[in-house]
């Protein structure tokens, strides 16, 4: 009990500016709420890989608290440890005390990002270009899409691969280049317009959150999402002025940019007058459902942000809970499928049952549950680019479980996970045996032919 407390009484005068910033940013309530029971340890992928307490949620919170309490200085190792976390948030459902670990992590990263002088000029420039100029600008995203499309179709891709030019890039970049899907220079709105009536009696009007990356690299998935939704009885609108969700910004310590994107999206979707805001990417959806928290200190936006957050839903959840489901059929030879959870869909949006229910409804398909399907695949936003070593180790273990399912189709519900799974299949030489597919595309492919 407390009279026995041996609280280390070292109290640094805060000269370290990062320490001061962390003390300001880190939510003291959340730090105190962690009671160190350790229930998060088995849920954490980096703890599972290393067995090191500092690589666990309990350990990372203890480090943050030690900095906040002035017991330790936030040194280089501290920064690295914060960046070593995948941010998969599997610790949150495991936590009895409901500690908002994701928030603490973002607060820590945000403070670190404000103070870091460690990024090389190259990293700084590319972060600036990507976070401030590219993702928040759908026109530029499409330009990238067109360039990528040109790269893939002009023969340059073939040339780059055959000539060995790709070898000039780091290994993990080469690997990602290999699995890039066919890009599109035209987003969903240019392709099909903004308003789509429900088939049959209208159940509700919903707005599609198209996502920035989704709209360039997975435009067909967005199209299939609209088809599935209208088929199931929803009228779909796609607000044209919507922007990137801001997830990559929020997870990388660019909170202000994330807030600015959030405000824009809240306004656009509020104006759309819809009953649900549908996401088909767990990574985006997870930030969208937390817009209320992201803008909770902003009195002008607080209320609308809460409305927004309360109305975001993943497509699988919407279909299962409110939709008129069409029949799904596999007419070819019987196949086995399996599913890799999107961490943010599962741990933040708390949707894990709905996609499984949908997959099990497809006739002529055997669903095999994968061991540790709920464990992060190592993609984790841009983690596979920033921490290639740990990401690779996690992926290797994941692919063992994938292989064990003997599935021909590996489904997932987030573009980052999908790319990582494609990369895994490629790297582990499983290309001839299986393919990775977004659950929306799979369901769309197996709708009754007349309905497609």
């Amino acid at each position: 009990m407390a009279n026995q407390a041996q609280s280390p009484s070292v109290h640094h005068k805060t000269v370290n500016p990062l320490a001061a910033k962390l003390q300001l940013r880190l939510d003291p309530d959340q730090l105190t709420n962690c009671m160190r029971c350790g229930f998060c340890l088995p849920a954490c992928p980096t703890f599972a890989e290393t067995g090191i307490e500092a690589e666990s949620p309990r350990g990372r919170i203890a480090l943050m608290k030690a900095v906040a309490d002035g017991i330790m200085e936030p040194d280089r190792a501290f920064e690295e440890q914060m960046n070593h976390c995948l941010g998969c948030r599997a610790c949150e459902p495991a936590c009895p005390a409901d500690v908002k670990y994701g928030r603490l992590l973002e607060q820590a990263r945000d403070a670190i990002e404000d103070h870091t002088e460690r990024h090389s000029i190259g990293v700084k420039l590319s972060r600036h270009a990507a976070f401030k100029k590219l993702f928040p600008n759908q026109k530029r995203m499409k330009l990238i899409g067109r360039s990528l499309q040109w790269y893939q179709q002009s023969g340059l891709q073939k040339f780059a691969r055959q000539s060995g030019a790709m070898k000039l890039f780091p290994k993990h970049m080469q690997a990602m280049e290999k699995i890039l899907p066919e890009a599109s220079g035209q987003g969903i709105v240019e392709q099909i317009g903004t308003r789509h009536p429900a088939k049959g009696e209208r159940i509700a009007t919903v707005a599609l959150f198209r996502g920035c990356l989704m709209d360039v690299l997975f435009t067909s998935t967005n199209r299939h999402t609209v088809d599935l939704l209208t088929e199931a009885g929803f009228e779909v609108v796609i607000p044209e002025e919507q922007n990137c969700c801001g997830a990559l910004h929020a997870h990388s310590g660019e909170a202000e940019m994330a807030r600015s994107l959030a405000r824009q999206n809240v306004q656009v979707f509020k104006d759309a007058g819809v009953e649900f805001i549908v996401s088909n990417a767990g990574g985006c959806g997870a930030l969208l459902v937390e817009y209320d928290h992201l803008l909770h200190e902003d009195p002008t936006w607080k209320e609308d942000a809460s409305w927004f957050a309360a109305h975001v839903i993943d497509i699988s959840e919407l279909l299962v809970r409110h939709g008129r489901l069409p029949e799904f059929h596999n007419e070819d030879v019987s196949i086995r499928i399996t599913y890799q959870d999107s961490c943010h869909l599962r741990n933040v949006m708390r949707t894990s049952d709905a996609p499984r229910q949908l997959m099990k409804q497809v006739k002529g398909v055997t669903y095999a549950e994968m061991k540790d399907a709920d464990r992060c695949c190592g993609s984790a936003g841009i983690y596979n680019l920033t921490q290639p070593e740990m990401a690779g180790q996690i992926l290797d273990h994941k692919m063992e479980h994938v292989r064990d399912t003997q599935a021909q189709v590996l489904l997932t519900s987030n573009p980052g996970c999908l790319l990582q799974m494609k990369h895994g299949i490629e790297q582990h030489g499983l290309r001839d045996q299986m393919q990775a597919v977004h659950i929306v595309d799979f369901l769309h492919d197996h709708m009754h032919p007349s309905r497609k």
Partner: protein
Amino acid sequence: MLQEEVKRELIAILGPTYVKDDMQTLVTHSYDGTPMLQALPDAVIYPLTTTEISDVMKVLHRHQVPLISRGSGTNLCGGTVPVHGGIVMVMHRMNQILEVDLENLTATVQPGLNTKKFITHVEELGLFYPPDPSSMSVSTLGGNIAECSGGLRGLKYGTTKDYVLGLEAVLANGDIIRTGGKLTKDVAGYDLTKLLVGSEGTLAVITEATLKLIPPPQYKKTMLAMYKDVYAAARTVSSIIESRIIPATLEILDHATIHVVDDYAKLGLPRDMEAMLLIEQDGDREAVERDIERITAICRQEQAVEVSVAQSQEEALKLLTARRSAFTALARLRPTTILEDATVPRSKIADMVIAIHRIAKKYEVQICTFGHAGDGNLHPTAMTDARDAEEIHRVEAAFEEIFEAAIQLGGTITGEHGVGLVKSPFLEWKVGAAGVEVMKAIKQAFDPLNLLNPGKVFAKESRKRVVIDRG
């Protein structure tokens, strides 16, 4: 600070990867599952073999450096907080199941093995290891043995001590001993196995354990009974046992816990109840059905307002949710949750629950009580805030009085969490001055230099007993 020479010698034994003394490592090994305790070690080591541990102990013995061995650090008595500094030794790398002997029904394991993994493994072999502490998905078997962990199945199946047949352990001077074996009967000298179980890392470092396995029950049934009177619930507990029925699980939740659990899990529990019993029986189908029928009759006889028996596995899970979510529901109420384990003879359960209510009221603190009614092991749980010194002071005063009340009723200060740091000032209340002296003499015999987990079990000063105000 670790002497350079000691560090060099440790690295020579373990390799540089497994000796760490950077700030990050020290901070993350300065706590365990106990609220409001923190102290930095001088270094953290991760051994792989018994020989390494023996060599490490020889070095530490020579330099007189303390050693705290630990598993996952989930204990609730401050048992692995390095209050005197020294080396924290994490046993996670020693996590193998060395053997499952199907002829003798034993398993031989390393101490860093995760409890849940072990239980799952033996269940797959069609066997059963009953001790099930709530932390089992996180905890290690070595930690369970060191703390003599209990769990929900204690009443019928006993606790960790009833399943440890033999141990290998390293003494403070580096010597290796083996106790017991795959033997049901063994009276060769003092029972060192039983002595080491629950010794909280103060006598030796456990490096291997041989555990008893039993055949699993074939069938299980779950039921629930609600009461408007705590005494009626408690009388039910006594009546069940008097009728020569030993249920596998017999749990109680008090009024305050029922409220909190229902707010959290939205189970639609009646709000005007003073107590709830959750009862499970396992065994042969016929016997289970008969027992559940008799228990139902006893519950009604003792004025249970509502009795429901689960008709399916799903229904059983739903009933169990109330008990399973108790800790989670309580932990979310306030920032700091202090979970105690005062234990009384089961015939005194009602008196103890009432005493806890009275004490909580007296000190104006929020205490919910739930726990293992069948074995008298209650968990009075205080919801508070570590940052509010005045409130924490009242919580401590309340718990002191709860410990005293337990002892007055013929109980103990701790049923399953251990003494560690937190209960050490109260140990004498339970075992008396002579009892403490005998225990200290045992400690002296094993560890004359006081190197193994120093500062635990024995307090510098025993707390003066509080006079209970019966008003």
